Structures are given as structure tokens and as C-alpha cells.
């Protein structure tokens, strides 16, 4: 069963609820007076975050998402993760999705490293026995040793990265989505992480990485998608897209 991720004509819009229309009272007032009172209560500005996006990713694809701030990269990742159900279009996915957007997701700083691993595993949909099975592998990958016994509020951000990265990749995700990760690991760990990502991707899996660092994109990805104002401006082989992107960015 190979991993697959397809988006067909996906559009996502965010109505911006002003603090006025967030109030039930103002809504009722507006209705009740036929719109003569509180007319400013229902100004809805809509942000079209994704406009008619179509993508087809197959097993083995390592895709970089690039674009300026607000282009729609995070929204696209969230649609892929299933967090946002699109207003229009379809999302078809096959394989376990592992979103890595925030290293502190589900992390309870008062409990130990081991317990956090177990909690993260539960969040990603695994059973306790599956988690225990992979525990030695994770522990060995993090290289955190005895630190795993004490509350994670004592960890540095680099240690947190090791922990969550280990958890996310050791549970054999088939589709890995990463958003502008602050790669706080040291050089040794980064090399290990890249090796791990490469090996997992080789096993017929998909990686989507949103990043501003073109260097990281080059290192980790084989293809790129350039987003601008909610649309795909360009997609293709990494070098081609990055070259076009740097040219445009460099010119302005």
C-alpha cells in the first residue's frame, strides 16, 4: 500500500469575525432592528487562503513548500493534515499522516520524557503496545539517556526537538508534514535526522516541508511547490523552482 496525497481544486476561505460579530448580542440586535442599528456588526472580511489548488503527490516525493509570508503554506499543510476541511474541492490521502507543526504539541511539561513519548504516540493514533514496541528505538535515537526520566520542563529546545522528532519519525508515518521547523538540533543530530528522514522517505513515503531556508529545502527535498497569494505559482524539480524563486526574490 503506497502513500498518496492528492488535492483537487481545493479552496479555503477564512471569514474574519470582527469582535463585533463575535457577540451574540450584536447579531440579535442586527437582525431585530432590520439592520438599522449596529450596522457595523456584520462586516465580514474574507481571506482567501487557498484558491483552486491542485497537487498530486506520490510515494517517494519529498516536496518543499516555499513562498512569502501569508502565501498559504501553513494553510495548505493544514488542509493536507485534515485539520481544515476545504470549502471547495477534494483531498484524497492514503497513509498515516504525521503533522509536525509545533514541537510542543501535546507535550505536558510536568511529566517525564517517557510519559510524553507515550502521550504523543496516543495522539498519533497508536496503541500502548505499539508504543512500547518502538520505545527502545526512540530512546536510542534521542540520545537523551537519563533525562527521559525527569519532567520535560527541564529540557532545552534542542532536547525537545530531539524528543519530538524521534517520536514523530519512529512511528512510521507514511505522510510527514513539517512546517518551518526551528531546527534547533546540533550538527550531529541534524545529520542523523536527515539520514532518518531520507531512509523513511525511501520506504515509499511522502514528505512535505514548508521552509524559508532554501538550503534546508535543497538538502531535504527533490521537488518544490511555490505558493503565492493562495495559488500555486510554480511546481517542479527543486533546482528549477528554487532558481526561479531566488531570481524573483533577489530582484525585489
Amino acid at each position, binding site marked *: 500500500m503506497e502513500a498518496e496525497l492528492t488535492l483537487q481544486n481545493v*479552496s479555503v476561505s*477564512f*471569514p474574519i*469575525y470582527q469582535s463585533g460579530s*463575535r*457577540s*451574540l*448580542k450584536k*447579531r440579535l440586535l442586527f437582525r431585530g432592528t432590520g439592520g438599522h442599528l449596529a450596522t457595523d456588526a456584520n462586516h465580514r472580511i474574507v481571506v482567501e487562503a487557498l484558491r483552486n489548488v491542485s497537487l498530486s503527490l506520490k510515494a517517494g516525493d519529498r516536496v518543499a513548500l516555499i513562498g512569502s509570508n501569508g502565501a498559504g503554506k501553513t494553510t495548505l499543510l*493544514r488542509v493536507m*493534515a*485534515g*485539520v*481544515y*476541511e*476545504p*470549502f*471547495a*474541492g*477534494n*483531498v*484524497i*490521502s*492514503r497513509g498515516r*499522516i504525521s*503533522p509536525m*507543526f*509545533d514541537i*510542543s*504539541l*501535546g507535550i*505536558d511539561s*510536568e*511529566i517525564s520524557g517517557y510519559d510524553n513519548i*507515550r*502521550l504523543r504516540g*496516543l*495522539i*498519533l*493514533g497508536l*496503541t*500502548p503496545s505499539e508504543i512500547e514496541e518502538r520505545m527502545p528505538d526512540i530512546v536510542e535515537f534521542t540520545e537523551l539517556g537519563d533525562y527521559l526520566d525527569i519532567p520535560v520542563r527541564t529540557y532545552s529546545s534542542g532536547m525537545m526537538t530531539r524528543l519530538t522528532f524521534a517520536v514523530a519519525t519512529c512511528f512510521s508515518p507514511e505522510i510527514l508534514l513539517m512546517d518551518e521547523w526551528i531546527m534547533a538540533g546540533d550538527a550531529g543530530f541534524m545529520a542523523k535526522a536527515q539520514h532518518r528522514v531520507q531512509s523513511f522517505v525511501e520506504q515509499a513515503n511522502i514528505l512535505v516541508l514548508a521552509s524559508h531556508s532554501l538550503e534546508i529545502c535543497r538538502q531535504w527535498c527533490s521537488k518544490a511547490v511555490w505558493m503565492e497569494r493562495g495559488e500555486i505559482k510554480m511546481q517542479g524539480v527543486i533546482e528549477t523552482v528554487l532558481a526561479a524563486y531566488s531570481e524573483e526574490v533577489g530582484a525585489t
Partner: protein
Amino acid sequence: MIQRNSIEGNPSNEQIELGRRRRASAWTDIVEGIALWRLWFRLGWNDILQRYRRSVLGPFWLTASMAIMVVTLGVLYAELFNQPIDDFLPFLCVGLLVWTLIAGYLTEGGTLFTGSESYIKQIRLPFSIYVYRSSWAKLIVFAHNFVIYIGVLIYFQIWPGAVSLLAVPGLMLIVLNGTIASLTIGIVSARFRDIPQLIASIVQIIFFLTPIFWKPESLRGHAYITDFNPFFHLLEIVRAPLLGNLPSAANYFVVLFLTLINVAIASAFFSRFRSRIAYWV
């Protein structure tokens, strides 16, 4: 293989199909949520542990404060209302115990989704998980406070007998209604941010209108205040058995009717707005 289709924008003759798909998604969410019981079990448990870490009494802070309230107010109001204390205090104790559970569903329902924004925006999990987690945490707190009831039984030498077992299905009905109602409240509160305050005010009023500090017998002819108060009936199906009495058929009838309304409203709201929750928080 997961296929997620669009939630909006179809012409009117496909509305029935859309409605059917939405209901199916809502139902799948409820069922998937139950399947993930290990997760919300752990999360709810951690919620409670979090409150009491590095503290002296730990989980029994809640119990202690309720015990003090029961004792002092019980003694005071028994005097004020001229009621025998061995009758009034157990009545007050159980009333407060169960009311705290019911009110908790209403007041905490508002932050079910808004309080879990970081989870909702990062990973796709059934929304029902947040509801179950909250409900489980409330049950744990109820279990802590139940100790006071045991204490009262021992002190006043009361033995409620076999009828007290009826409190179990009664409790299950309260948990069911509370969980379903908090789902509706959570959804609406994600969209309109002043709902939680509105509910808090209403809950306060209902608290005084419901016989917790006063006995229903003292109404003398204004029985409609209790008869038409669904919270009275909800309270009675657990309070009466725990005090050794049988709840009336009317109590059960009203609660079942309430459950039906709850289910109808929650399923309508959840089906229609489930996919919007991530956009609202």
C-alpha cells in the same frame, strides 16, 4: 484511503446528499472518538493531575472545600429553615454534589474547543475527544467529592438500602445529558465568544430556582417551580436513591424527554458545524 470532500458550495438539489454526508461525518467522529479512549482517558487524567501537582492536599482540595461548605451551610440553613439537621444536611450534601457535576458541564462546555485550539489546529483528531476528555475529568472530580457523602452517611448513621443502586443509571443519564449538552455549548461558544458568560449567569439563577438549599415540600402550592424545572428532575434521579428514596416516574419521564431534545439539538449542530470548528477557534 481517506477522501475529504468540500463542505460548501453545492447547488440546492444536492443539499440532501450534503446533509447526509455531514451526518455521516458527525457520527464517524463520535465513534472514532470512543475508539481513541486511551488518549482522552490519559488527557483527562493529566488535566486533574496538573491542577494538583506540587500542592499539599493534592486532589482533596476540592473535596475539602466542598466538605466545609456542606457542613457550615447545612448547619446554618437547618437553623434558618427550622429543619431537623439529620434530615437537611444529607439532603444538602447530595444536592450540592450532584449539582456541581451538572453545572460543571454547562460552565466548562464553553471552552471545550476554544481551549484546545493548539490541538485542533495541528492535528486531525475527532472533535468528540475533547468532549469525552472533559466529561471524564468531571467524573474524577465527582468521585473525589463522593467521599463527603460517605462521610455524611457514616456520621448520621444513614443506610439508604438497595434503592441507592438506582443512582447509578441516574448518574449515567446525567453524564450522557451533560456530555451532549456541552458539545452543543462548545460549538456555539467557538463561534460566539460571549456564550460562556451568558451560561454562567443562567446557571446561577437556575441554582437558586432548584431545590438544593431548600426542600421541595416548602413550596406549598407553587409546585410548578420544581415540576417545570428539568434540573430538578435531573437532580432527583440521583439524589433520591442516595437518600434512600425512589425517584418518581415523572422524574424519569422528564429526564428521558430532556435527553431526546439534547440529542436532537446536538446532532443537528454537530452535523452542520463540525467542519467549521477548526475555522472558528
